[in-house]
């Protein structure tokens, strides 16, 4: 039995689908952020998998994932700062309370 590329991609797809589901359904903003991390993580994993199986000689996918992790960290920090700010203003972290930005 070989551990081919598909074996690794399937958990990635499951992670991604869970992330999408959570992002759309959860009302808590932190929970949405957790879902977002799932999506991001699955994308990172994909980079690495493709790097390993399709281009074993290079390491660009890994480098890209390193950058993505750094950006994810930055994005999470900012997002949490915003969520805390909203919490101070609104009193909870419910996304349905934050819908003023519209027509």
């Amino acid at each position: 039995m070989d551990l081919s590329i598909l074996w690794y991609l399937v958990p990635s797809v499951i992670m991604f689908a869970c992330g999408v589901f959570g992002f759309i359904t959860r009302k808590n903003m932190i929970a949405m952020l957790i879902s977002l991390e799932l999506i991001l993580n699955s994308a990172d994993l994909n980079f690495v998998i493709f790097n390993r199986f399709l281009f074993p000689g290079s390491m660009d996918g890994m480098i890209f994932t390193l950058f993505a992790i750094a950006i994810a960290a930055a994005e999470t920090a900012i997002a949490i700062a915003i969520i805390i700010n909203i919490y101070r203003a609104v009193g909870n972290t419910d996304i349905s309370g934050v819908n003023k930005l519209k027509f």
Partner: protein
Amino acid sequence: MGSTLPILILAIPLFMFLLLGLGGVKMPRKVCGVLGILGMGTTMTLAYIVALSYFFCPEFTVDGVRQQVMVFDQTWLSFTDTLVVNLGFLLDPICAMMLMVITTISFMVHLYSWGYMEHEDGFQRYYAFLSLFSFSMLGLVVATNIFQMYIFWELVGVSSYLLIGFFYKLPSAVSASKKAFIVTRFADLGFLIGILILSFYTDTFNFVEMTSNPGQVLAECGGATFMGASVLTWAMVLIFTGGMGKSAMMPLHIWLPDAMEGPTPVSALIHAATMVVAGVYLVARMFPVYCIAEGSMTFITVVGAITAFYAAVVACAQIDIKRVLAFSTISQIAFMMVSLGVATDSPYIKGEFYGGLGYMASMFHLFTHAMFKALLFLGAGALIHAVHSNDYTKMGGLRKYMPITHWTFLIGCLAIAGIWPFSGFFSKDEMLAAMFESHWFWGAWMTMVAGLTAFYMFRLYYLIFWWEENPEYKHHTPHDSPWQMSLPLIILAAVSCVAGFIPFGEFVTWNRMPYHIHIELPVAATSLTVAVLAIALATVMYRKKNPLPERMRNLFPALWTAAHRRFYWDEIYQFITHKIIFGIICKSIAWFDRHVIDATMDGFAKITNCASSAIKGFQSGNVQAYVAWYFIGAVLLAGITWLCFI
């Protein structure tokens, strides 16, 4: 001669315009007036020096032919290799003559205005505009190329507009200035098209290049024809259209009578002596080319002859003295046009007759007419100044109260009527001689016009100075004007007395070779007889108050009304512009604009509006909905891509 003096002739009026226009408000009136007069006096002196040295220094004459001197000719705009516009100073006989005429009249008017405009608001502005006009007019006559002429042509149009509308608080003055500007602009459109056609074929704007070898111009135009006439003829007729506008030829004459809304000295300067003869000057400038463009000369002659007669008839039935003089101006300019039109470029003297006689006579009449018509206008200004009305019914019997004005005005009338030995006699005699030599019909027709001229001028003279005294004189006695106004009258009257004895043909002819003027006795006798008869008739009718004019008027009431209303030209224009152009053409265009173009644009806006209100619900502010939509969109795109490429 260096180029310093000629440049100064142009630079001083321009400088005075800038000085008085920018700094005039800060100056007292006296300073402003004196500055303007001094500036113009200097310019006049310089112009005389330049012109007289041109006429009398032998260096400008080679083998008996006066040379056309390019004092300077500077490239101004260079578009392509062939399309180059120059600015320069071309000195030749007609230019030198015009320099003298313009500066003399302008100086007289500057001096006169000091008295006439003394109590008006905007005195400084007035002097600034006068300087601007003098500059533009001088630039026009010295133009080396037709494009420079066009530039200054528009500049004189602008200064004319500004000066007609000088009393800008009067609605009539404002509309008159607009009328003058718009009518002449329309004519100038033709002028511009003519210039473009001509220069397209000849690759040059330069007068000297075009006129020194007109045969080559014709050759360059080739056999190109348009609607039965050669392209050259079309170009020259279109150029003449510009002249028709400026010189108030029919049917573009309607602006000139209204232009009398301007101050009277302005009428004397611009609308009698200088600007309105620009059309004549233009034709004279291009004369050799006109001669070779078959048909254009006939066109000029016919237009001139009709205009001359029309204006003379209308002048007989006007009440406003300035309007009489305006129509007289139109008639006299038309006289010059006819004289130019009958001239030919035949280089030889055929027996007694010289083909270019009409050209010489036309220029001669331009010269003398400028003097006596300015005199008449300035005299009219003095009358208006004294009586405070333009209307001769408010005048009458003024000869006792205003002797200087009376005598100078009489001299002006005699000159324009063509009585020996006043200047008008000599120039008119030469013109009539040229016309009779061309065709007896033109001679007879224009002799009749000359008779009418004598009649309406003396009708005006008697109605102002004889007839019956206005009883209001007892409350407000009219008197002669201050010296600033009388001096120009006297000077111009003196010039009108002696100018006829100038051997004009020695100086100005079309081929710049001297020509010896001699009086054509039969022609002179005829015209003199006609003039004397006309004056006698005017004397009988208008010397003392009598019912004769009333009876004459009642004999042909329709004719009188028609002439008084200037044969309804204004009404015709009104009808064409308002009923046909505004009412039919513009209305339908406006309908199209409103209901098709605007409606299309409104439709776009409406569609956008509807679409936005229909889809704005998508922007709910709910981030998760956005994500769901985005995700669905991404999936769809992926599906479509996959379907298309796999």
